[in-house]
């Protein structure tokens, strides 16, 4: 079995790919060794009156277009015309879209104005110019999809693709005559002069395969099948169970009227007295300071709690109170300055008092109950105590 495959592969590898050539002469080619020689040869060929000839070199040779007396190509004009089409198309498009079809007032500007249309005009000019140049080059100049130039697979083109400089005179030239051309090529110093015949199947005489019925039919089938499949999947398959379970579930959409509740509201408020998870109600909310002096700090004093307190204090309190609680805020001047936390009043306050101010707010300061969790607020209280102690250290702290 494996042996058979191997044999088959060998057969494929060794198959003769060379195409048969007809008797009809396509061109006569000659090889030259240096760029100077080929330049000279091209000049002489032009002088001798040959018009249908070409030069093949392994790399671009400067000045060859002049030596061959080539006229300017149509590339520049083509690009310009299509670029100009792009300019016009862009201006018309923007003019129609923003000026007529979809008028929108943006910053009090006119519906259609030139300045904002310039970038898109530029883009379309470049795009159309570039695409047309590349597309026309491939189709008109390189004549794709014709791919089998008779020069292919000759010694001439193999040599010029590596290190030789070649010149071919085509048989279609009006002065063409095998004997004279061969003599001429020899006289200008050409070596390995080679007659190149057409292939048996002449591509330039076959209609381009683009218009082949089979090709067009295949293209049409592929297009239709792809489009129908995509449409079918998107339109129908995605709405079959189980893909539509989530779509069809019982749910209330925003702004939807309820037919079940008498008041017509679909969204129900929570039952009275509902408490969210982990929430401990604060029964002193809105009461004056004096009632809370007995509230004790439930957290122990340790490095972890103090670090937490410092972090929260720096985030929420320091913008106004300053990093050390001295009332020297970063927002100084933009809000009324808060009092220092190191006044005798605050130092003599019970922990509960400070906690109450954070929770309830005081004067300009609003409640921080929503931003800072209960434990964090108590951690801040510990931290404030530490700050106060730090600025009013006792002798024993020095030990």
């Amino acid at each position: 079995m494996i042996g058979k495959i191997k044999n088959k592969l060998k057969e494929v590898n060794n198959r003769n790919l060379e195409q048969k050539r007809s008797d009809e002469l396509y061109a006569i080619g000659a090889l030259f060794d240096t760029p100077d020689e080929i330049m000279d040869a091209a000049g002489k060929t032009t002088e001798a009156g040959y018009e249908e000839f070409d030069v093949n070199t392994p790399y671009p040779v400067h000045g060859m277009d002049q030596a061959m007396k080539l006229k300017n190509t149509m590339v520049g004009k083509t690009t310009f015309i299509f670029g100009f089409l792009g300019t016009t198309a862009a201006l018309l498009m923007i003019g129609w879209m923003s000026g007529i079809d979809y008028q929108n007032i943006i910053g009090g500007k006119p519906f259609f104005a030139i300045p904002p249309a310039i970038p898109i005009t530029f883009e379309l000019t470049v795009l159309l110019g570039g695409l047309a140049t590349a597309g026309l080059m491939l189709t008109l100049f390189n004549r794709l999809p014709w791919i089998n130039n008779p020069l292919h697979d000759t010694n001439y083109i193999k040599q010029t693709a590596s290190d030789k400089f070649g010149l071919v005179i085509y048989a279609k030239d009006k002065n063409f005559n095998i004997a004279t051309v061969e003599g001429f090529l020899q006289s200008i110093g050409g070596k390995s002069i080679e007659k190149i015949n057409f292939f048996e199947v002449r591509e330039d005489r076959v209609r381009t395969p683009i218009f082949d019925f089979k090709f067009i039919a295949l293209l049409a089938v592929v297009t239709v099948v792809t489009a129908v499949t995509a449409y079918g999947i998107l339109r129908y398959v995605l709405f079959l169970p189980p893909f539509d379970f989530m779509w069809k579930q019982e749910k209330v959409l925003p702004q939807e009227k309820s037919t079940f509740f008498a008041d017509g509201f679909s969204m129900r408020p929570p039952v009275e007295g509902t408490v969210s998870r982990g929430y401990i109600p604060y029964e002193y909310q809105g009461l004056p300071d004096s009632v809370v002096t007995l509230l004790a700090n439930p957290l122990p004093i340790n490095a972890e709690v103090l670090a937490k307190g410092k972090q929260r204090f720096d985030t929420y309190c320091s913008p106004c109170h300053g990093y050390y609680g001295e009332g020297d805020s970063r927002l100084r001047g933009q809000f009324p300055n808060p009092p220092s936390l190191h006044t005798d009043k605050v130092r003599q306050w019970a922990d509960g008092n400070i906690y109450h101010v954070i929770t309830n707010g005081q004067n300009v300061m609003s409640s921080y109950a929503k931003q800072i969790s209960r434990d964090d607020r108590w951690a801040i209280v510990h931290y404030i105590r530490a700050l106060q102690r730090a600025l009013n250290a006792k002798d024993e702290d020095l030990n």
Partner: protein
Amino acid sequence: MEFHNKALPGKVSRIGFGLLITGLILMVAAFALDYRRAMFDYLTMFMWLLSLGLGSLGLIALEYISGATWSTPFRRVSEFLASLLPVMFLLVIPVVVGMKELFVWTDPQVVKSDAVLQGKEPYLNTTFFIARAAICLLIWVVFYFFLVRNSQKQDSESIPQYTKSNIRLSAIFTPIFMVTLTIIAIDFMMSLFPHWYSTIYGVYYFSGTLVAAYSALTLISVLLKEGNYLSSRINNDHFYSMGMLMFAFNIFWAYIAFSQLLLQWYADIPEETFWYIIIWEHSWKVVSIALFLVHFAIPFLVLMPRSVKTNLKKLKFMAIWMLVAHYLDLYWLIMPAYDHHSAVFGWQEIGFPLFAVGVVIVIFKMKARKTNIIPVGDPKLESGFNFHL
């Protein structure tokens, strides 16, 4: 060698001095008739000459740091043009003397009643202005001196060491060039409207400067080529490259000008738009449209085909055109400060460009008498001659 010290004909000096003296007489008359208006005309002329000199110095530096060889046969043209820079020290004196006429911020009375000008006073004051101008000019002249000295020494000594040190100098000079050019553009032109600002202003002047420098280089090279003062080995590909760069930097100028317009149009902030209102009303509107056509639309279409850039006659015409367009550009930047309502143009404006062209010709002729028109000792010269597209 064929291009050793070939003196330009005496006709050149006669034309140069003729223009210079005619211009000078008209200038003096203009100053006598309307001192303020003549000051603004003078500033326009000053900035145009600065564009040529400074832009040419920029081109020299550009050639060295990019390792370009194609422009080496023409580098002397840029060097001669850059020798306008030392002369700028003389030419800047009238601007400094007439500052009070040009810049409103020099008037303490105006500054006192204007909060914006008070805020800008630490920068926009007479002393600092003069100091900046002097320092920038000094920097340019120093770099000019060293770059050109190295280049000219190479003529006799022919050693590549000079090219190497010039590459190093150019690499240092290029960023300094951009900064100093921006400072001078802001000081001498943008501060004519001290309430207005555009952060792209320096780049705008830079783009115009390079257009002017390339145009002058092209024009003079074509003239020298026609008179056979350049080597016969200079071919159409050299001139094509010059035309191409002129074309490219002209598009760059339009791009910068449009970038400024688009952003200020979109943002629509009163402190930015009032300048556009001035130049888009009354007769300034005509000048603005003319500037668009003369500086961008027409050269864009004319310079596009290859045939124009390889035809020396057409190229010469377009180089002159672009030099005029750059003058118009500066006129459009500076003169609205003289009269917000109407674009003034009369015989008073004629003398200044004549004088400027005269100065360029006379200095070029003087330089060309002492120095070779082609840098014969430059190691890049040979590959410059062999340049092909």
